[in-house]
């Protein structure tokens, strides 16, 4: 999938991105509504026209979607209800007929974890089960590329966890998936490659590790020690704060392995016990906040 300097204007919002190529499992993430996720994904899905640039999805321009191309992609849309009168199996069977070489319906039922519910009407399903049926409808045509637009938004934590397990299963089965999400932990957990959009522009992309690295050196080593510990002998710059039972020490580290070795060596020499010792990497949420709060001209270079 390639997008070359694409610009789209739709209902007053402008989206433009630089070239990117999707790997096996990409997550596209925007913290706020209006980040351009849905506009972008709907251009790629063949729903929306763009006003400039070149877009190619599976070698086809989605502005001119044809039937052969539709056979190769699967869509899971946001906010799309299903008729309550059909069973899970009936719904999937009907949709499977739309595609040239569909997957076996029972296999899809199993893949989305609805075996026990296959004979139940959609009206009887929970929100999470309906959302998994949505995913099943995206999968039933055996697509080469699956679009998942915010599949866990509005789900309770356990339904979200089940959805994650299902998506991990799809990833392990080798499906190429473009996932959009508000949740950074979701992108980090599921995506091989993450693209962060802000006001329709890519402000960062890469693996979760690369995104964290792009923040620079902010990994911390943290621990608690007795108040009489000889911190001066540590020989490292540290944030020290008084704590109920000791002193809390936070050390910003450029080289975690070496610095951790020095800390442990110092502690052994002093016969100190380090309580709550931890190495804290920045979370993707931190990356996100940083990108969301920085003015656009500062983040554009990343």
């Amino acid at each position, binding site marked *: 999938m390639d997008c070359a300097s694409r610009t789209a204007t739709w209902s007053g919002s402008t989206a433009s991105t630089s070239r990117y190529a999707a790997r096996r499992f990409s997550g596209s993430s925007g913290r706020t509504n209006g980040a351009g996720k849905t506009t972008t994904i709907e251009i790629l899905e063949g729903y929306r026209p763009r006003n400039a640039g070149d877009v190619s999805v599976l070698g086809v321009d989605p502005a001119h979607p044809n039937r052969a191309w*539709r056979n190769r992609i699967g*869509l899971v849309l946001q906010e799309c209800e299903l008729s309550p*009168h059909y069973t899970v199996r009936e719904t999937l069977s*009907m949709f499977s*007929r739309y595609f040239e070489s569909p997957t076996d319906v029972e296999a899809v039922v199993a893949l989305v974890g609805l075996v026990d519910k296959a004979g139940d009407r959609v009206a009887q399903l929970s929100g999470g089960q309906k959302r998994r049926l949505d995913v099943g409808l995206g999968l039933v045509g055996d697509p080469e590329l699956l679009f998942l637009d915010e599949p866990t938004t509005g789900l309770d934590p356990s339904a979200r966890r089940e959805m994650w397990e299902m998506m991990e299963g799809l990833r392990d089965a080798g499906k190429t998936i473009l996932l959009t999400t508000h949740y950074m932990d979701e992108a980090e957990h599921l995506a091989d490659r993450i693209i962060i959009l802000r006001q329709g522009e890519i402000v960062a992309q890469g693996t979760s590790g690369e995104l964290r690295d792009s923040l620079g050196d902010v990994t911390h080593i943290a621990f608690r020690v007795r108040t009489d510990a000889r911190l001066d002998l540590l020989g490292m710059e540290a944030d020290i704060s008084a704590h109920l039972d000791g002193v809390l020490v936070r050390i910003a580290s450029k080289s975690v392995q070496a610095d951790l070795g020095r800390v442990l060596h110092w502690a052994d020499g002093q016969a100190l016990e380090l309580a709550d010792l931890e190495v804290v990497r920045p979370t993707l949420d931190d990356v996100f906040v940083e990108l969301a709060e920085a003015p656009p001209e500062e983040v554009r270079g990343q």
Partner: protein
Amino acid sequence: MSDVSLAVAQTRYSVKGYLRDPSALVFTIIMPVVLLLLFNAIFHGNTLFDGIHVKSAAYYTASIIAYTIMLNGFGSLVIRIATDREAGQLKRYRGTPMPSWVYLFAEIGRSVVTIVVTSGVLLAVGALFYGVTVSGHMVVGLVVYVVVGTACFAALGLALARACPTTDSASAVGPFSTVVLAFLSGVFIPVAIMPAWLLDIGKVFPLEHLARGLQLAFLVPGSTGLTGTNLAVLVAWGAVGLLVAIRTFRWEPLAAGAC
């Protein structure tokens, strides 16, 4: 699977959903039958039609069949399309390789099924309980008017769907316009006691011509009721509806009020 067999399968699927929807059954089959019973109870005996005395029961059997064609072909079709569109179903269909016409074929096909079944029930009630005589000419007229009338109102339904962004607005506009036209077209009230100026307004619209055609077939011995004027008006309205539908039909949900 060929597209034709896909269209048939989609129609069966739609009819299956209909049979599982009690409110749709009440609205599309039970209500016309109850109306027939009520009107026969209120206006029993004879009524004047084109200056001759005819049986009220035959008059109402023909009229309520016309009403059923508009109610199912137009009113409930508008509601279904607005509902499917508001729910994002049409958008979802649009994202599959299914040709768009398959969906429209199936929904109109579902209307045809309900119209044929309801018309059959109405005819049976008329014949069995009210002594309406069924003749060959009459059946020919009935079949042609069911086909032409359904096509006309389905096209108008597809056209009106654009103006009804939500299920709520479609549920108001579709049945309401059907009832208003039924009063203007001598469907609910016999033409003999209707003010002429109201009937003149009714003559502009297709329901009057469908009802009159069926009344001729049911009331005039040896007549199929197939007149050039009635058929021409139905075809003309249908053609206008089709042109508007082709130009304005929308698959994605419409913002409320975005008519």
